[in-house]
């Protein structure tokens, strides 16, 4: 299977799956999923996943034997993004300022 085919399968399969997850919430009787343990895990899941995605996106780079840990311009960009979020900047400002910081740092280093 080519990489493009695999990507298409992921796009279509996960896309359909995400729709069914939405529909399940509206269609399944509430008591099935409202057990406290299930609700707790479901509330914590996006937090753990998004935090892990931040860490992996920013602090890893492709190496010869797979990804390795690095600290580079992206770490500085993340720091600036965090400061902007504390200052309640809008999403687009946060994202594109972070990009500009990384690009600027690469120009001068």
């Amino acid at each position, binding site marked *: 299977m080519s990489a493009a085919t695999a990507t298409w399968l992921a796009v279509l399969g996960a896309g359909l799956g995400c729709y069914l997850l939405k529909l399940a919430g509206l269609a399944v009787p509430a008591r099935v999923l409202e057990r406290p343990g299930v609700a707790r895990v479901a509330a914590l899941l996006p937090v753990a996943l998004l935090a892990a*995605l931040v860490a992996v996106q920013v602090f890893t780079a492709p190496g010869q034997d797979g990804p390795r840990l690095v600290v580079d311009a992206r770490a500085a960009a993340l720091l600036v*993004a965090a400061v902007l979020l504390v200052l309640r900047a809008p999403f687009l400002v946060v994202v594109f300022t972070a990009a500009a910081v990384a690009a600027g740092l690469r120009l001068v280093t």
Partner: protein
Amino acid sequence: MSTLPAAERRAVVRDSLGVALATGTYGVSFGAVSVASGLDVWQTCTLSLLMFTGASQFALVGVLAGGGSAWAGAATALLLGTRNTLYGLRMAPLLAWRGWRRAGAAHVLIDESTAMGVTRGSTAAARLGFLTTGVVIFVLWNLMTLVGALAGEAIGDPRTYGLDAAVGAAFLALLWPWLTRSRLRAVAALGAVVALLVVPVTPSGVPVLVAAGVALLVGVLDRRPLP
């Protein structure tokens, strides 16, 4: 909806449009990041049309950009999509839709449409807030995704404009509103550290899934209720 007083209807629509315009426009960053991650314009636009839930879309392209397998990207997107199931449970009795209306409403069941519907006192107001927000975001998000994807393709190497660094910032911005309580902040920190610890010993894409185990463990072991 005819049962809603005109003043309340205007207020609900105004609030919903404010949230929808702000959210829909950041589809441009998804479009740009997605093509920078190696997806083509068609795949990028299909994600916004079919998946239509921002965090899952960013997750899928982020995992692929890091060299992760297609299944790891899909699994991460699906795990993030489970929170929409919880939103559905909250919204179902409020919206009180059945059949094809419910099937249609499910597609625009996202963070923002839930937020703008869940606070209303009546079914008519909940439906109006939910639909106005969901449909306006859907239209804008898809238009802006296309704009971002075409612009991203014109740019070429994403590193030139730091677009690779934009992905981490996007995830942090999506995470930010969740960090309201110390336990959630602790889970976030633990998830990030665990993911980085397993990076050297697992294939790309897997560390993020391992971090999902943190949520599972804390959710099972720490039995204090979350609000």
